[in-house]
Each structure stands twice: as structure tokens, then as C-alpha cells.
């Protein structure tokens, strides 16, 4: 019970004095600070190459910072064991910019992966996956192998896979880049609903329309630094 109380008061992501660099290249992000409260919703913006994907990969624990501390769910990931890291990752949903689906598997099996990793029974998995896939209008493509799907279909599979396990943090990299406007707004509605249920959401995007339409603050990356642009006040 005590830990639960802590989670409520502590930020869900706490990044302090972090630098990111690849090998000997110059730093991509330099000495940044970022704290995300539980249940917050942010857009992540910045020019191409500004480091949006890099920042997100650090938050889904695939990239280690070259300096500084990263706390996720109150755990310092620099000192977490491999199994503890896996446990943290199970609570985070990720939509990759390039989808990163398991191309040799069906749409159904891709979406089922997080639940199978969790050890859920196949009957329950079937119920949940079918429901979500028909919600993203993929019920007809459920058994198709992913390598045969279109870009927009792949994107929806990727999003379904990210949210199937009702993650506490959802990190989405350009999640509406490949779909038409109708589906894009439907997907955004999904993210907003999840956020209302308590999921902390960060969405990287280039879309000015999206930012204008939804009244959320931005994490803006520029010149290796980070600043928060508050939500636009709508008239």
C-alpha cells in the first residue's frame, strides 16, 4: 500500500541531467531535465533529427543515457536488474516510428505478444485481441501475415500491440503518420480515452494540426535542449 502512495505522489518518469549520444558522435541531447506526472498527456515536438525518437527510446528503456539518472515508476533504471527492467517495460506501451512488427507473424499474433509475455491464457487473449483489432477496423486482416499489410494497417497493428496490455505509460512515435484523417482521429480518441483511465501519454509528432486540435502541452526539443510549451488556450 505504501508503494502505491509513493507512485501517486512521485513523478512517473523523472529524467535528471541526462545526456544522450551515440558512440563518439556529438551529443544529441545535452543535460536535459524532464518530469512526467502520472496521468499527464504531452506531445513531443522538434525538427527531424532533434532527438524525439532517442528520448522516447530512453524512456522505454532501450537506450541508456551517456550521463545522468533516469527514474521510471520510481526505479532508478541505471541500477535495475535485467528482470526488473523487463518488469518495468511490461508496464510501458510503445508505438515505434517504423512499427517494428514481427513481420513473419499474423496481425493477431503480433497484438497477442504482450499478453503472452505476461502469461495470460489463450482464451482471454483471444477475446481481448479480437475486440481491439475490430475496434481499429482490422478484423478482416487479423490472420494476415504482417509483411503483407499496408502501411496504415501496420500502424494500427502497432498501436493495438502497444495498448492491449493497458499500459501505465504510452510512448508513441508518429502514430498517425500513415493513416487517413478519419482513422487518425479515431486513434487519437483511443489515446485520449486511455489517458482518462490514467495512462501517461507522450506522442511524438510533426503534425501542427494535431497539436492545434488537442489542447495538450508540448515537450519541445531544440538545440540539444528541452523546453515545455504549455497547452494552447483555446478561445
Amino acid at each position, binding site marked *: 500500500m505504501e508503494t502505491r502512495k509513493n507512485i501517486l505522489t512521485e513523478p512517473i518518469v523523472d529524467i535528471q541531467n541526462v545526456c544522450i549520444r551515440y558512440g563518439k558522435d556529438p551529443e544529441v541531447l545535452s543535460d536535459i531535465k524532464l518530469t512526467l506526472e502520472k496521468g499527464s498527456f504531452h506531445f513531443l515536438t522538434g525538427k527531424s533529427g532533434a532527438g524525439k525518437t532517442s528520448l522516447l527510446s530512453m524512456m*522505454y*528503456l*532501450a537506450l541508456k543515457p551517456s550521463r545522468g539518472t533516469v527514474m521510471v515508476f520510481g526505479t532508478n533504471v541505471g541500477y535495475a536488474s*535485467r*528482470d526488473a527492467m*523487463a*518488469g*518495468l*517495460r*511490461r*508496464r*510501458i506501451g*510503445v508505438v515505434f516510428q517504423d512499427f*517494428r512488427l*514481427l513481420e*513473419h*507473424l499474423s496481425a493477431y*499474433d503480433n497484438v*497477442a*505478444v*504482450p499478453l*503472452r*509475455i*505476461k502469461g495470460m*491464457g*489463450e*482464451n482471454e487473449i483471444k477475446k481481448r485481441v479480437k475486440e481491439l483489432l475490430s475496434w481499429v477496423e482490422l478484423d478482416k486482416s487479423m490472420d494476415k501475415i504482417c509483411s503483407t499489410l499496408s502501411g496504415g494497417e501496420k500502424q494500427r497493428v502497432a498501436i493495438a*500491440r502497444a495498448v492491449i496490455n493497458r499500459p501505465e505509460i504510452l510512448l508513441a512515435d508518429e502514430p498517425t503518420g500513415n493513416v487517413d484523417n478519419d482513422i487518425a482521429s479515431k486513434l487519437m480518441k483511443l489515446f485520449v480515452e486511455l489517458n482518462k483511465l490514467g495512462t501517461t501519454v507522450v506522442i511524438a509528432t510533426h503534425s501542427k494540426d494535431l497539436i492545434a486540435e488537442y489542447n495538450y502541452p508540448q515537450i519541445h526539443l531544440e538545440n540539444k535542449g528541452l523546453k515545455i510549451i504549455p497547452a494552447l488556450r483555446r478561445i
Partner: protein
Amino acid sequence: MKAKIQIARHAELPLNEDKANFFLQISTAISVFLFSIALAAYFMTSSMISSWNKNIVDGLTVQIMPPAETLSEEEELLRTNKVISFFEGLDGVLKVRKVSNEQIQHLMAPWLGKNADIESLPMPKLLDVRLKDGKTFDFEKASDSLKEFAPYASIDNHGLWLKKLIKSAGSLKILSLFVLALVLGATVFSLFYAVETSLKVHQNIVEILHVMGATDSYIAKQYAIRALKVGFVSSLIGIGLGFLALFVISHLSSGLETGLIGAASLNRFHWIFLFSLPIWCALLSMGMSFFGVKQVLRKMM
């Protein structure tokens, strides 16, 4: 019931399509083939050595040559008793027994006929000496001191001869142990190498699974299940070929000196162990793969 079968089927890693898979199957089959033959050789030499040790070496025979000129019965008895007391005084001797004339007659029957009059022939007298432990008894030393004490008596040297035979069988046994260790080492190495190669090939999938929150064990389990199947099937093939080879060898040698090879038979325990090799192999490759994957993942990412 259905769910359980599905868990095994729903492996995200397409390991059955691996090119390394075929290599692994062949190398496992060959390893098990070599292993079964080396193991059979080990069992055979072991049982050969122990049966020689048990049946022949814990005893020795002493010949007392007949005297050049006729002696009185008493003198003859004295001569024999001197040798008996020599052996009774030796360390490691359990019992000394004269071989009776009837027994000698029985032994000589093939050459002399059943009704030969042993008494009238200048036959050597024989003593049967039982030893506590032939393996530790120093035949050479006993033979030398007997020569000084009673030059007319001599140790039948089959103990010496057998010791040499046991020695060479012993080196055969060590050789087969060496081959066993070599095959085992090569198998473990190639399993590990196959796991490492496969993980590199599927690095992309492994990374995705990691991001989804899969533990190393989750990934290792998929390898372990595959290794269990491959290990079992391939070693069945390997042991099939091994038995074929053993059968051919034993047929070819059955016409040879049965006295020596006869001791080289396999007992029930040996057969059970040989037949259960596929199970051991499957379990070994399962365990090796599981821990191999965890090891490689820890180093790789």
C-alpha cells in the same frame, strides 16, 4: 489442455526455419553416434577388466618340477611342503592347495586320454594359490624370491601376462573416456555456437520482445523447447546408427577369441544407459540452450 499446446506453438522466434537448425541436427546426430560407440567401448573395457581381475588374477598356479632322480615319498613330500610354506608365509596369500592327481588327470585328459596313469609319469605337481587381491599382489617379486628359495618350483606366469593385458585394456578405457569428453565438449561448444548465431540472426525480434517486456528466460524458453525436440530426434538417429555399428562389430568379432572378448559383454545397466542416451541428450541440449541464451543475451544487449 488446448491452451497448453498453444503456448508451445506460439513461439515468436521462427527457430524452425533457421539454417543453423539443419547444422545442429546433423552435428547432434554425429555426436551421439560417436558418443554411443565410445560409451560402449568404455563399458566393454570396464567389464572386461573387472571380469579378468575377478576370475583369474586372484589366483596363481605353481608348478613343482619332478626331481631328476627318484626320491622317497617323504623326501618328495618335504620338497612340496617347502614350497607350500613359502607361499603361506607370503603377504596377500589367502590359501594354498595342492591340486590332486585326479584333477591333473582331468586337466590332461585331452592330451593323455582318460585312463592315463599319472603316477607313473614324470608329471609336475601343481599348487593352487588363492590371493586376497591379485591386483595388488606383486607377482614379479614372488617369482624372484621363489627362484632362490626353491629353484625347482615356478609360478605359472599367466598372472604377469594378464596384468599386461589389463594394463593395455586400461589405456583403451582411458582413451574411450577421452573420446567421450571430447565429443561432449564439441557438442556443448556447437550448441553454444548455434545459439549465439541464431540470436544474432534474430536480434531484431529479440529486441522487440525485450521492449515488450520479455525476460531473458522467456526468450531462452523458446530456444530450450526447440533444442529439446531437435536433441531428441537427432540423437535417436545417432544412436540408431551407433547400435548398427555395434551390431556389425560384435558380429565380426564373434568368431575371434571368445575367451577374451566374451568378457567384453554389456550388462543390463549398460544397455539401459545406452538406450536412454536420446533422453540425456535432449535434456542436455535443452539445458545448454536455455543457459546459453541467457549468457549470450547478457553479453549482447
